[in-house]
């Protein structure tokens, strides 16, 4: 029963093609809903939430130590008592109108209004006439640490009144301890005028600000050099204070320093631009990009609890100047403070980057656990030996007289990297001060990143951001029970 064998065979091929199409569709649908489902559901234009809100009372939000950050009393939402505390948490929890993107109250609305567990709730409501209440969230953050951050910015004269961001996380588990973006405001008391006077107050700088990382990017360049350049660890580089890349571009050092003969470790310690620029040129664009992408640049972060903008390393550095500048974190390289914190965390965790989490547990109003804690890793950024070498280099930066000495704290093992990034904003030159680092002690395994915007001309990240970092590490040292 064969008619035109070849034609029949081709029928089968076409049918297979169509089947593959459907399979693709099914897999794509499942994958996108799994990864993007929460974001889509929490979108402001979703009318279903409004329905849910009419029938269900919003659940509570507490920090890791049980401090109530938000709760509903008699139909009204009540937040923390003190205005300063509310201000510190505004970017984390959200302002009352949903202007802050992906804050906990809007992003986790599914849990807060009990959308997932609605059947049981509805049955209970029906049978026992109990008030329908959403789930209660326990966040990983420490509210007091969050409140300490604006105070830290205020306490140092160089950073007082400056905008910026700070994020602290546990590099072994991925728990985010603090997430604060400045300028912040008290959503319950601040009026339109005050808010309008602030510089982009609704912008969560921790997760959304894509800025040049400056010298903090040398972590990546150093890793690339250790991985790909033979005997990079033992080689001696010569820094003459400037490196002429081409006719238009010469790499210079901060403060016109000349470092002389240095090893990679020393160059890292003193944040020598010329060594890393020449290293980048030696590596070549493709190699450096490959390592940057392993560290998470150009990757689509799909974290469960956080929506973080994607950092980027230019897809193609067309010119030598751009490549050289990329070596020390200028040019078109951009990253978020969250990502830079993840960089330190990955290095501290022997090369394994843990996923940053905000939700510790989710419990129903009856007390049953809806979502338990789970930590997972995002990727492996480098091998354990490269991580080890980087850890040593970062130690030198803070503890052995490097650029990050201001971050050191007594009886802690602070390691990190400073950064001073030059950029322009609205045509005016703007400098950003960065510090990213971690504490190498096992009982307090925390990594952080601090960003200070618009630091005065001539100042560095080491003078500004590192000091704030020291304050935060001190808090962690002094309150171990709150943060572990």
């Amino acid at each position, binding site marked *: 029963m*064969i008619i035109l*064998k070849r034609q029949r065979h081709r029928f089968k091929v076409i049918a297979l093609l169509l089947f593959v199409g459907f399979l693709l569709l099914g897999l794509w649908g499942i994958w996108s809903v799994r990864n993007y489902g929460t974001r889509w559901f929490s979108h402001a234009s979703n009318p279903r939430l409004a329905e849910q809100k009419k029938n269900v009372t919003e659940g509570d939000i507490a920090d890791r130590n049980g401090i109530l950050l938000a709760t509903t009393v008699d139909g009204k939402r009540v937040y923390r008592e003190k205005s300063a505390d509310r201000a510190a948490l505004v970017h984390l929890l959200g302002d009352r109108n949903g202007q802050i993107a992906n804050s906990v109250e809007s992003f986790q609305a599914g849990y807060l209004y009990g959308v997932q567990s609605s*059947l049981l709730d*509805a049955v209970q*409501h*029906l049978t026992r006439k109990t008030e329908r209440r959403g789930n209660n969230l326990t966040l990983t953050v420490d509210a007091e640490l969050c409140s300490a951050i604006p105070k830290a910015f205020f306490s140092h004269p160089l950073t007082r009144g400056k905008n910026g961001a700070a994020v602290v996380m546990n590099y072994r588990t991925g728990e985010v301890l603090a997430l604060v973006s400045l300028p912040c405001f008290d959503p319950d008391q601040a009026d339109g005028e005050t808010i309008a006077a602030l510089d982009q107050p609704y912008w969560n700088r921790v997760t959304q600000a894509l800025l040049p990382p400056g010298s903090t990017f040398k972590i990546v360049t150093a890793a690339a050099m250790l991985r790909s350049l033979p005997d990079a660890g033992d080689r001696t580089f010569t820094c003459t204070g400037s490196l002429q890349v081409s006719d238009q571009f010469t790499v210079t050092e901060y403060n016109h320093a000349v470092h002389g003969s240095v090893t990679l470790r020393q160059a890292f310690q003193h944040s020598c631009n010329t060594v890393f620029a020449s290293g980048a040129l030696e590596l070549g664009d493709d190699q450096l990009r490959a390592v940057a992408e392993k560290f998470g640049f150009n990757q689509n972060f799909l974290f469960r609890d956080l929506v973080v903008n994607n950092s980027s390393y230019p897809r193609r550095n067309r010119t030598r100047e751009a490549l050289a500048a990329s070596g020390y974190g200028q040019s078109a390289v951009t990253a978020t403070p969250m990502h830079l914190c993840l960089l330190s965390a990955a290095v501290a965790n022997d090369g394994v980057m843990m996923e940053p989490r905000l939700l510790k547990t989710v419990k129903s109003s009856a007390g049953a656990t809806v979502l338990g804690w789970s930590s997972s890793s995002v990727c492996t950024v480098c091998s354990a030996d490269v991580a080890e070498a980087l850890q040593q280099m970062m130690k030198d930066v803070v503890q052995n007289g490097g650029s990050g000495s201001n971050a050191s704290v007594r009886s802690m093992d602070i390691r990190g990297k400073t950064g001073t990034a030059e950029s322009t904003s609205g045509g005016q030159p703007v400098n950003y001060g960065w510090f990213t680092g971690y504490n190498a002690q096992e009982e307090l395994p925390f990594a952080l990143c601090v960003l200070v915007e618009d630091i005065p001309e001539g100042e560095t990240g080491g003078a500004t951001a590192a000091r704030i970092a020291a304050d935060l590490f001190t808090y962690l040292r002094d309150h171990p029970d709150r943060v572990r």
Partner: protein
Amino acid sequence: MFSFSSEIYEVLALAARYVFALLGVLIVLRSFAWLLSSHREKKDRLRRLPDAGMIGEMVVLSGSADLPENTALPVPREGVLGFVRSCDITVPCAGVKRRHLDFVWQDDAGLLVHPRSGCDALVDGQELNVRSGVCAMRHGSFLQIGSALLRLRVFAGLDPNAGFDHPAAEPDPAYDPALPPEAVPMPGPGMPGPMMSPDGVPVPAPMPGGMPGWMPPSGPDAPFVPAPPEAEENMPPARPVPKSTGWKEDWSD
């Protein structure tokens, strides 16, 4: 009319989600089970009917080492004849191109044969190539391609004009060197084709493996002799004529 309060309805609807999902999965499973079983059943049926869909056979009168004589190549209703195995009729002989010619059966015209470019053939002595167009082969026609000589045998009920007023019905004996004349009854006017009983009642269709009336001359079976008239009472009755094959009931001329 009856309706639930909104709270009860909500509970019902939420609980019903799982019921519907289950039913949906059940429907899918049963559909595919049906698909598979019907597929298997069809395969079974086709295995029991190797000739299903064939309109006849091409008997190899002279072939090659790969194509021994007296092989019967089944001829489907439409297809391609050529050297390669992916053709519907495979003729692995010298001089046959990869895809030599296309053929299609039309109920009133016979087997229309159309050679492809660069391919030649001879049908009942007539030259055939791309320019000369389509030629019709009927029951008993000869086809010469390359070094192969084939003769078309159409199954019962499919070629109403078999053997009657067919211009090529008197073949040149040069094309039949190996066959003794009495072993192969030549279709001609007035003489019934091998599948017909004398009074024109059609005899039922082929049995897989060969026709009683077309025996290879060297085979153990006796050469065909038209059935004696008295055997007619033992003939099974004429089978009912399904309309789809365009059977013409009246055979006798």
